[in-house]
């Protein structure tokens, strides 16, 4: 099996860049005292990031994706296990695609 030197350099650089992004926020918060306003903003980040991850797929892709998300939302609000939500979503997406 071969390893190309430029490929190895790229992989190492990717690893370093990604690691820096992963530690930067933690380091900043530990280094500096946060005001109430910034803390309030950071508390909104988890939900906002997760919403951003799925919003284009859920609201702007197609009926199957929207239906899958709706199925997961229903299961989650019933407080059923995550695996049930995944299965229901996949079934909803596959079902809608088969029909439409």
């Amino acid at each position: 099996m071969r390893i190309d030197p430029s490929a190895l350099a790229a992989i190492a650089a990717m690893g370093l860049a990604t690691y820096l992004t992963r530690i930067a926020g933690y380091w900043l918060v530990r280094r500096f005292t946060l005001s109430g306003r910034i803390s309030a903003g950071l508390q909104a980040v988890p939900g906002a990031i997760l919403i951003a991850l799925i919003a284009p797929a859920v609201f702007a892709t197609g009926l199957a994706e929207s239906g899958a998300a709706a199925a997961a939302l229903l299961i989650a609000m019933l407080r059923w296990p995550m695996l049930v939500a995944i299965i229901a979503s996949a079934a909803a997406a596959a079902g809608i695609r088969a029909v439409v």
Partner: protein
Amino acid sequence: MAENAPFNQASQPTARAQLLAGAGQALPVVAGVAIFGTVWGALAVQAGLSPLEVALMSGLVFSGAAQFVAIELWSSPVAVGTIAFASLLVGLRHVLMGASIEPVLRGIRPGHAYLALFFMVDEAWAMSLRRAGQGKFGIHFYIGLCGLLYLSWLTTTVAGALLGGLVDDPARYGFDVVFTAVFVVLIVGLWQGRRDVAPWAASAIAAIACHRWVPGNWYIFVGGAAGLATAMLLWSPRPEGTEGEASDAD
């Protein structure tokens, strides 16, 4: 964030129970990881990576988003600077994530925390926050969770590289929506009340607009930043409704 740290409570589960709980929560996600891992591995080989390079990249980078972008930019010889810069941009959301997970990691020695952060993928981050909200987070939970996610990403990307297109069309079986389902469940768990509406709506609108008009993966960071900015704008020194301050355990 200092004033409300409802984490690190008494009656912690044992290390073994935490490891198992972490691995157990990773399990449903592994199905999705396996699909994307095999697909990515196959695409990476088509883009010119050897299976050994696939293993190295999965092991050292451990980021689906960065790795998908990298193989789109892959050439011979490889443009090292371009690809590293792309990883940095794709990873910008991690900066916000790392800042928000800091209170969760407060009980852990910084040296260990910096090691733990290497493994901070979206799912591990979100599930750790949820666990902390329940007052049950411990480093062994994180190890069980990330350990299984890491192993499954490493093995399935290499399997995809060695075997080629195992799953030609994940969408046909509805596999492509696995991550959407996981994130929807995690979002429902994060809901704390009416004060979440504005930041979340801002994030959704910004992400959809950005996804539509800006190439690349900027929409994730932009949505997160829009939520952050909205919550900061709406903050007042004495909030009228203090619901959700310590009631995030469900």
